[in-house]
């Protein structure tokens, strides 16, 4: 049957996947620490009907040949680690990372996960945890009755206790960096997991060895730009539509071919 049917079909599949990625970005426009993804496409293989460069005579070559493409494929959904907007919340346990790095949290099964979502809380034992209750690593516990918590740009956490004017240091936050953060695996719930592609994590104190600094009482919002996503959505929809036109056209051409025989 006609190649164009499958070629245009691959185009529709690719644009559908593109819309899926765009919708997820838009759905997470207000998710703290969310990083947008983007679909990357590549052309599929080519069928060589006539080899370019083949000899067409004793002293002449075919200059271009005939190569017919077979459509497109989605090759990656790349996470883009540009900085999101900072929002002042006033909450002492809200932290944003200015620069590179991730917070490290311990999952219930003991493995480590990584996040840019800095909306931390304390649990019943005073430990600093994520909204899901996963502990920050290294663990930091806030003593009961602490009247104020201060987190410095370099990650030193200190509290003021009642009847005590001097503040007391209770822990040191660490940030984790990866050679290739785009290679981290998204687990959902704002968490990321190490993979072979991301490389091993390197932990350091905020502000050292290229790690970002901590901004207390701020949250990093998503880096989704609504206008960009809407434009991408329009582009993807039109591309989808044009590919469907290519399908109907080749279908009608096949109909004509079938109609030749009366």
């Amino acid at each position, binding site marked *: 049957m006609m190649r*164009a049917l499958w070629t245009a079909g691959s185009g529709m599949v690719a644009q559908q996947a593109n819309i899926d990625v765009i919708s997820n970005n838009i759905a997470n426009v207000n998710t703290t620490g969310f990083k947008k993804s983007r679909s990357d496409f590549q052309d599929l293989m080519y069928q060589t*009907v006539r080899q370019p460069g083949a000899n067409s005579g004793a002293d002449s070559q075919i200059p271009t040949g005939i190569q017919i493409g077979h459509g497109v494929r989605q090759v990656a959904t790349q996470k883009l680690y540009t900085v999101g907007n900072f929002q002042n919340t006033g909450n002492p346990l809200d932290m944003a990372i200015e620069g590179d790095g991730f917070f490290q949290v311990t999952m219930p099964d003991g493995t480590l996960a990584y996040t840019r979502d800095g909306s931390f809380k304390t649990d019943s034992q005073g430990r600093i945890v994520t909204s899901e209750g996963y502990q920050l690593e290294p663990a930091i516990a806030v003593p009961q009755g602490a009247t104020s918590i201060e987190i410095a740009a370099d990650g030193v956490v200190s509290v003021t206790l009642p009847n005590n004017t001097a503040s007391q240091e209770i822990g040191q936050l660490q940030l984790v960096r990866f050679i290739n953060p785009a290679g981290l695996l998204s687990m959902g719930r704002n968490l990321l997991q190490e993979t072979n592609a991301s490389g091993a994590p390197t932990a350091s104190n905020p502000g050292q060895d290229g790690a970002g600094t901590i901004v207390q009482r701020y949250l990093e919002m998503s880096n989704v730009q609504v206008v960009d996503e809407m434009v991408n959505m329009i582009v993807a929809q039109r591309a989808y539509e044009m590919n469907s036109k290519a399908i109907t056209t080749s279908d009608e051409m096949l109909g004509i071919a079938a109609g030749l025989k009366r």
Partner: protein
Amino acid sequence: MIKGIYTAASGMLAESIRTDATANNLANVNTAGFKKDAAVNKSFADMLISRINDGPVQPVGSVGTGAEVDEIVAIHTQGMMRHTGNPLDLAIEGQSYFAVETPAGVRYTRNGAFSRNSLGELTTADGHAVLAENGRLVVNGSSVTVSEEGIVSVDGIEAGRLRLAEFNDEKRLIKEGSSLFQDTGAGQKQATGLVRQGTLEMSNVNAVSEMVNLINGYRAYEVNAKAVQAHDQLLDKAVNEVGKI
């Protein structure tokens, strides 16, 4: 049988291949660095017709015998530039190509949606290393800047210079799929392209002209089909009416 049937059918075949090429362009309308294909038709060799039935043999002219797709040629014009803000997205302004190391050898691409692997090397989405003038390029650092000349600096320290390739005869680059071009003797010259960081070159497919090509191919196909039918009707008359005793 009647020549015209084969002539018109060759036209249908050629238009069908042209439509395939158009469909591939439309499928890749959002593929970064994609270069559109144009299908060029040519006529078969003409046949010389001679008068032989009465009197001396005399040439009376020539008649065409149909059309075929002569070449499908990639059009290497600049695609639209799209700003992405991602430091590893690189676009080339001008005629140059990025050199990429694949298991099959060095290939060339205009698709600059690069990323890093776990060793910090700059790679394509397929994981092929992007080549600098002295081998692979390690961009392991928090800030990567690329100058217009292709000099890559990581945290302010020069890490290497991108290997840009420019060709004398771009027609000799053949498409391999996966956004890669293979050099089949195109002849390299001094690269003049400028690298734009944080930008992707989109495909150079013009949606409007491809839609026009689609209509054009469809109608040409339809007209050729009508010619086949007309010839068929003529044959029908010749066989069933003229031949009636």
